[in-house]
């Protein structure tokens, strides 16, 4: 089979697989896990653009998810606005955060940008905790209603699954269009060499700002979906640990790719719920794994950086090109 066929077949199989999940899985908790995977994928598509393509590191992405989640929760519960409006507003507010975080990226690179985004993330966690009149502080924000489109409330586990993955699909099509055309080349050029990109007339300020904004927008949408699916949010969800987990998924997935990070996001999300996924697994084993979740993520980053610097994406690209020559 040629590489071209494979390239169209694999995404097609992925879509079919995702579509039949709600038909095969009747357990509501299991479906919720796959829904969470979709929410993470949404964040990771944004981070794959920002970090994987444009090479701008963000250790504060959970903050954007938080901004989206609280915006959606506040607008629906306190202001009684329609869910769709709240959802869109969640994206807008997170984008504004992205715009703010883009500013240091214009001056800082590498470790320094990592430190700046990390501080941003910590600051936002503090804000979620302290701005009690909006967020409910450490006690959290509960009673968030399910998503609704006009008179239709989406509360069935399978409907929520569909809603999340449809949003993911739309985001993915947009992201794929960007990466396969001119804007994606500008992003990867920026990653490859800022000097070279400038010498080609690339508007590096524009590329950085736009990519940060798009990436924050998707994280904001993901936050809104999370709040509406779970019904309860608290600052402990949107911490540095979550940001690191997102970054781990992106690194394991590989740079310059969308498929790699998406697969990594799904796998690393599912790892957290082994107990529910593999019926026979002893309870203690699952719990041990869960308590070591952050360590697993850290280990994944280290292993990938040492043994497969290009992540999953490069691994299968190599395999494909090897198959082509032999």
């Amino acid at each position, binding site marked *: 089979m040629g590489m071209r066929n494979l390239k169209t077949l694999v995404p097609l199989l992925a879509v079919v697989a995702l579509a039949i999940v709600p038909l095969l899985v009747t357990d509501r908790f299991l479906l919720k896990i796959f829904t969470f995977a979709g929410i993470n994928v949404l964040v990771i598509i944004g981070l794959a653009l920002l970090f994987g393509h444009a090479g701008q590191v963000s250790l504060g992405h959970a903050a954007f998810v938080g901004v989206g989640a609280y915006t959606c929760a506040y607008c629906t519960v306190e202001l009684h606005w329609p869910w769709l409006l709240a959802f869109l507003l969640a994206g807008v507010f997170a984008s504004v955060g992205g715009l703010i975080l883009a500013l240091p990226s214009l001056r800082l690179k590498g470790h320094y940008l990592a430190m700046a985004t990390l501080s941003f993330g910590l600051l936002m966690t503090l804000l979620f905790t302290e701005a009690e009149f909006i967020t409910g502080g450490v006690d959290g924000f509960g009673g968030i209603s399910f998503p609704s489109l006009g008179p239709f409330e989406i509360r069935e586990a399978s409907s929520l699954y569909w809603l999340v993955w449809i949003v993911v699909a739309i985001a993915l099509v947009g992201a794929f269009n960007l990466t396969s055309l001119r804007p994606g080349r500008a992003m990867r050029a920026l990653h490859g060499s800022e000097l070279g990109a400038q010498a*080609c007339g690339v508007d590096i300020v524009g590329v950085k700002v736009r990519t940060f904004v798009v990436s924050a927008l998707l994280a904001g949408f993901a936050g809104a979906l999370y709040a509406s699916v779970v019904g309860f949010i608290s600052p402990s969800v949107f911490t540095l640990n979550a940001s690191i987990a997102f970054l781990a998924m992106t690194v394991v997935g590989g740079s310059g790719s969308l498929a790699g990070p998406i697969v990594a996001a799904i796998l690393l999300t599912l790892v957290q719920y082994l107990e529910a996924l593999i019926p026979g697994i002893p309870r203690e084993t699952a719990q041990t794994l869960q308590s070591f979740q952050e360590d697993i993520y850290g280990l994944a980053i280290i292993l990938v950086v040492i043994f497969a610097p290009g992540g999953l994406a490069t691994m299968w690209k190599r395999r494909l090109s090897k198959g082509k020559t032999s």
Partner: protein
Amino acid sequence: MTLLQVRNVTKRFGGLTAVDDVSFDVFEGTIKALIGPNGAGKSTLFNSLTGFDRPDEGSVLFDGAELVGRKPRETVRAGVARTFQNTQLFEEMTAAENVMVGCQAHQPKGFTTALLRLPMAHGEDREAREEAARLLRLIGVEEWLDAQAADLPAGIRRLVEIARALATKPRLLLLDEPAAGLNETETRELVDTLFRVRDTGITVVIVEHDMGLVMDVSDEIVVIDRGRKIAEGPPRMIQKDPAVIAAYLGEEADDDD
């Protein structure tokens, strides 16, 4: 016609004057070489011409318009393209993709058209792809079209970077040591390439250490030593210039410290 007028350009880094009151002209359709010992200030001068550095004093007129104070992107749009001493290719992209990025300099922004994959974005993409193939052919490296930049041999990297610079449709092309890392055959091919580029109407300024190449291609040479211009003229005159000979004989002693 004078395409580029460099007037009294001075650039200081702390106490060091890297470029000291340098002036010269470049005529349209010619190849001019900038030579001088290591650390003479040639690359700094290049940066001052392309917006990567802002000279402390002086003026750079390109076709009558001031370049000093413009951003790199703006000088590219104005028609001045460059390569780097340390090639600045996009390693994870193919040679063709590298050149396609250069094509963006004169395309409309098109973020939304790309996001929605409108027909316009596709047309633009195809044009850039064809242009990249054409330029790589012009430079003679078309067989590397789909090779990852990171996998390219040193000589080919420099040529791909030239193709990428040409993609920005320059009137003036600045090449920073294009022959570095090239073997003899490749250097000879580079000479042909430079003539072919010039024959398309593009004016060329090169910084180069390979004296054979410099004498072969350049119509005029500017010699810089310790930031100052010490000589200017056609190759035959420069070869006999006592100040130039002194600067080059002194080079080895300078290298020791």
